[in-house]
């Protein structure tokens, strides 16, 4: 019996069309747009100005504060301007626009493909390097990685969990990465283990990726302390709380972080980025992106530079189909709908999903029939039907008491609702409002 998390969960159709497609290196586009806010926390402050000449890996914007991170140039060329450009958030955000000239990398970056197994850096050096390299959680949450690695005083970490679940339907970026960069993942995991000073790590993979499980299991004997944990397929297993529950049967109390139960979770893509940053001195400026969809002629996995407009990725994957109704940045369950194809990919872009026109519209909303299915599927044990109502009616005290802040916005409730009610829309709204109220209270 394979492990999985204990409450709720759904089984959306997987539709992993791009599975097994080799990661292709996407040609550098003519112009890139690099937003200065690509992570959770304070946006970075640009350290370059119009007309500056930059190389691949040059620092573009510097982090401000602890929860923030650096942004590096993904291309070489000259800086056109810093302007407000529509990004994946749907708002105009400050963005550095660079005209690409050649492909010249910073000399400090080791571009050899040779595997470097030995970790010479100390724990503190690793965390510093990760912070400088601008590494964030590549699963989509884009939380700066160095923050997670800095264990607060009084807390201990005894196990590291690598999230290779990729429970979102359609996406295959992590899967393909595991098949192609197994050794890098193993070394990256060991770097994390050294930074956290733990001797155990679990790489959690859902059982639908048999080839990846076998591949990593065959490698793991050479890397002590790392075990591979196949999990039963169920969404939202990739949620941090659900993953910890599934792997080590510890439940994080409400409002607390994983470190509370002695663990840290990192995404598998992040381990590769960390390997490259620590062993090869390469900052984070490119990532693997899945471009997929039912109507796409050539669903693919690309290694693309940050700031590449999604139109070039879609073009490389066979072009945008005529009947496209929606473009989603990320997976279908938690991804964001994008307003046009000029939007650049960022550190958090795990995939681009093209949805056909007839599948892009929601069904008409009907009365709640009180079937209770939203409660059954909620992985946090909440009552979505009630939270939606109280959020809409601005009854935020009840929402808080019914633990609206525990919601992980996985979308299982809206996915399941037979009446097609926009449960998560209102819960997200209420969550924002309750969060504001709670913050103003602590001030």
């Amino acid at each position, binding site marked *: 019996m394979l492990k999985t998390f204990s409450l709720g969960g759904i089984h959306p159709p997987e539709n992993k069309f791009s599975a097994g497609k080799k990661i292709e290196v996407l040609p550098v586009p003519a112009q890139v747009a690099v937003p200065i806010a690509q992570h959770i926390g304070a946006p970075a402050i640009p350290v370059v100005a119009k007309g500056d000449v930059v190389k691949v890996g040059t620092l573009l914007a510097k982090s401000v504060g602890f929860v923030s991170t650096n942004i590096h140039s993904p291309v070489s060329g000259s800086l056109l301007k810093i302007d407000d450009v529509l990004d994946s*958030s*749907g*708002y105009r955000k400050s963005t550095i626009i660079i005209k690409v000239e050649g492909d010249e990398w910073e000399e400090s970056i080791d571009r050899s493909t040779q595997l470097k197994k030995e970790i010479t850096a100390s724990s503190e050096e690793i965390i510093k390097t990760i912070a400088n390299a601008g590494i964030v959680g590549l699963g989509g949450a884009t939380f700066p990685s160095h923050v997670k690695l800095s264990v607060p005083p009084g807390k201990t970490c005894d196990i590291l969990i690598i999230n290779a679940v990729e429970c979102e339907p359609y996406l295959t970026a992590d899967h393909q990465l595991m098949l192609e960069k197994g050794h890098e993942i193993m070394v990256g995991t060991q770097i994390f283990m050294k930074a956290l000073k733990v001797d155990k790590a679990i790489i959690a993979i859902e059982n639908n990726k048999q080839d990846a499980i076998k591949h990593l299991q065959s490698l793991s004997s050479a890397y002590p302390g790392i075990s591979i944990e196949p999990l039963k397929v169920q969404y939202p297993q990739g949620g941090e709380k659900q993953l910890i529950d599934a792997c080590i049967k510890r439940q994080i109390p409400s409002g607390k972080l994983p470190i509370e139960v002695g663990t840290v979770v990192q995404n598998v893509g992040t381990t590769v980025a960390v390997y490259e940053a620590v062993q090869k001195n390469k900052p984070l400026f490119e990532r693997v992106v899945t471009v997929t969809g039912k109507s796409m002629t050539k669903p693919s996995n690309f290694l693309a530079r940050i700031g590449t407009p999604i139109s070039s990725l879609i073009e490389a994957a066979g072009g945008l189909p005529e009947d496209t109704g929606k473009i989603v940045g990320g997976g279908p369950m938690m991804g964001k709908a994008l*307003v046009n194809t000029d939007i650049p990919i960022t550190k958090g872009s795990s995939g681009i999903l093209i949805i056909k026109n007839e599948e892009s*519209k929601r069904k008409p909303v009907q009365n709640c029939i009180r079937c209770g299915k939203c409660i059954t599927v909620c992985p946090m044990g909440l009552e979505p039907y009630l939270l939606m109502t109280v959020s*809409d009616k601005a009854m935020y005290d009840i929402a808080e008491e019914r633990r609206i802040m525990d919601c992980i916005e996985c979308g299982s409730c809206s996915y399941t609702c037979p009446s097609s009610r926009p449960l998560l*829309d*209102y819960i*997200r709204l209420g969550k924002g409002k309750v969060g504001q109220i709670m913050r103003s209270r602590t001030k």
Partner: protein
Amino acid sequence: MNVVVITILTLAVLGTVAALVLYFVAQKFKVFEDPKIDLVEEALPAANCGGCSFPGCRAFAEALVKSDDISALNCPVGGAETMKSVAEILGKEVGTAAPLIAVVRCYGTCDNRPKTNHYDGAGSCAVAASLYGGDTGCSYGCLGEGDCVAACNFDAMYMDPKTGLPVIKDNCVACGACVDACPKDIIELRKVGPKGRRIFVSCINKDKGGVAKKSCEVACIGCGKCVKVCPFEAITLENNLAYINYEKCKLCRKCVPVCPTNAIHEINFPPPKVKTEEKVETNAVKKPVAEKAVGEASTLEKPTAEKSFSEKIVTEKVTTKNATDLKLDDEVKKDMNASSDDKNKED
């Protein structure tokens, strides 16, 4: 016979004892309340809208009775008359707050501001605003989902199906519910003005001129022409956006014709003088846009603008009714659905 007597006696004794208990309990737990509070509450409109910033009319009445100086307190719904009667009851001085009215500072109609995408989420401005900038190029303007109309307790607003924007009727009492409901802060309470005449910048787009103009025909592009022309320093320009301070504005209307995008609206004024008209005619391209933007509600009201103010309200209502007549059935249906939906949520 005996049974009857015993029954009557028992009941009488029981009744007396219960009455005594009730009397003493009532005496013991009596809460003294100033009788003036009831009087004042009666004088208030009992709308419980919260426009006075107190939770309900009762709380406002308590505050009025308690505080010595009530010049800062105002009931926007009842206005000066109500406050006068309150002052008579309490024997205190009341301030004379100028009556306010809610103003929608966006004229991004479907023609002026083309849609760039199709919003398909929950029918609420708050949800749409928390998701993204909106279904047009302008990320500041009206989202058109009608949160403000839903918040209005006085039936003083409706969504114009032609423009996709909310329209505020003259029975607005300036309670401020719509101002709070709008996630984009588009609605502002402004002075009603003499004869209902008021001038305001009908745009809150803070984008740079080029970007703003590209997304909306009638956006404020922050050119500053109105600031220069204003003799009273009532107009300020901040973040590419002009703002008219209604306290300083003397309604001279100099700013209205100079605005290159017709973002400054004048309401309830007689039609422009011959001089301005000539000016408009010389600019052939600008003319249709200028006509379109004269009135807030619709161009149909323009010929009637010469009539007296009260007459105008009537005609305005008539014209807007005509405009919405066709859609009325649909709207009723929508209302019904919405209300059943509400009930269901309360469940």
